[in-house]
């Protein structure tokens, strides 16, 4: 079972199994594509900050303080897809 597989990887500190799972999720079952997707999201986020625009740090700090870790983890996954979509190269609908 997948969840058991992942929990065993956590307890055994098998980080390669865990990150592979994430890459497969982001790449719709293609690990190499998932690795590129992770890079794409980070590059897109970095590009947005290069000119040091004003950002709402108060909001960020409040969210980090007020919300539980699981909600933030879920948000982290949302942010990945947000930045991938923003990059304009969306692999998930079969067009690319």
């Amino acid at each position, binding site marked *: *079972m*997948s*969840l*058991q*597989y*992942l929990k065993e990887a956590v307890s055994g500190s098998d980080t390669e*199994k865990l990150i*592979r*799972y*994430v890459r*497969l*999720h982001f790449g*719709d*079952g*293609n690990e190499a594509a998932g690795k590129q997707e992770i890079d794409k999201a980070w590059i897109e986020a970095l590009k947005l900050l290069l000119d040091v625009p004003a950002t709402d740090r108060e909001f960020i700090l409040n969210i980090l303080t007020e919300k539980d870790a699981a909600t933030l983890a*879920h948000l982290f*996954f*949302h942010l*990945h*897809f947000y930045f991938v979509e923003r990059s304009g190269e969306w692999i*998930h*609908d*079969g*067009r690319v």
Partner: protein
Amino acid sequence: MDEFDENKSKQLRPGLWATVNERYPGSMITKSDFVPLAKLKKPLPESRLTFVSTAGVQPKNSLPFDTVHPVGDYTFRRVPSKSKPEDLEIHQLKYPTVGAERDLNVIFPIERLQELAEEKIIGSLSPNFFSFIGYNMNPEMLEEKLAKDIAEAVEAEGSDVALLAPA
């Protein structure tokens, strides 16, 4: 090569199923118990049919399926069986939706089922169809929560037949 074979060669992800355990390690379900298919209790022209789909189709403005969660989404949406394709949208990442966005019926044949009911080939349609996303990596939750929730909802609408369609 005839037209049929030519179309076959254009399959977007040939051999996909054979690779599922490689793509999603540990996700294959092994079942030791056997649940036989239920037999029809009355002819199809007298039966109420429902449709259950993993296509991630849902009414516009309903809460989008959680397509980003790494372990999946164990909720379902009711899709009124009288809906028109333009009333519906797809929230799903794990299959190429480009064709379904041109004609929803290729993945969620709602208009075909409406036609079959109008022609009385099917007795009637349940008030709602049922939709969820197929990326569910916890088989126990899929079986014990989502499948049970949908089964109860199907039963509550008095369905005699359920058409199940994976995306």
